[in-house]
């Protein structure tokens, strides 16, 4: 498994863990407190260190196919993020009207969730793209 794929699995697992903790915590202590579990996403800051460790082991961690997958996944991630971003901006307008007020505390939450959407869409796209090239894996490991 390529490093980029491992990292995508890590991000997807982390988001799943955050969601699993967010829902019960939100129910028990209120969703304002529950959103704090997304601080776990800060662990993605270790991904570049992971890459450095793999490189020290002498592995080829990023070749031209990885680059192509990263580019496509980035486009998919950004497209989905943009759809969600525009939807999140326009739907409240439709529901609440143009005179409604949104609390300032919603701004960092909106940025956080936008980042989570972008990361998760990119990670899932990465996993799908790697999976496509693996239909025959396992035949000759040599």
């Amino acid at each position, binding site marked *: *498994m*390529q490093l980029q794929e491992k990292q995508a699995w890590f991000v997807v697992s982390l988001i799943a863990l955050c969601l699993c903790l967010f829902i019960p915590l939100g129910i028990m202590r209120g969703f304002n407190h529950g959103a704090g579990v997304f601080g776990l996403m800060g662990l993605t800051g270790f991904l570049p260190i992971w890459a450095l460790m793999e490189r020290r082991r002498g592995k*080829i961690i990023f*070749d*031209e*196919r*990885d680059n*192509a997958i990263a580019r496509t996944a980035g486009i998919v991630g950004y497209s989905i993020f943009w759809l969600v971003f525009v939807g999140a901006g326009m739907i409240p307008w439709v529901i609440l009207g143009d005179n409604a007020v949104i609390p300032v505390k919603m701004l960092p939450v909106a940025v956080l969730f936008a980042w989570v959407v972008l990361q998760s869409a990119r990670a899932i796209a990465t996993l799908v793209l*790697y999976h*496509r*090239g*693996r*239909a*025959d*894996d396992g035949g*000759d*490991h*040599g």
Partner: protein
Amino acid sequence: MAATMAKAPVLTNRIRQLRFEHDEMTQQELADRVCVSRQTIIALEINKYVPSLALAFRIARVFKLTIEQVFEFGESLKP
């Protein structure tokens, strides 16, 4: 309106066959010699990835052949 038929480029290769003809070279050995991962060689062999020109040249050189002897370019009709 008449349906249009676009020609999709298809690049096939003989990498798997050539590896076996060259002392049963493993995917990892070939990957190391052309500086890519084994997963990329797997994707190439099953025609799931189209290599760059540079990688195609490197692979052909490993087998001491020309690009045309390793890769075959065709076009398939797709609606």
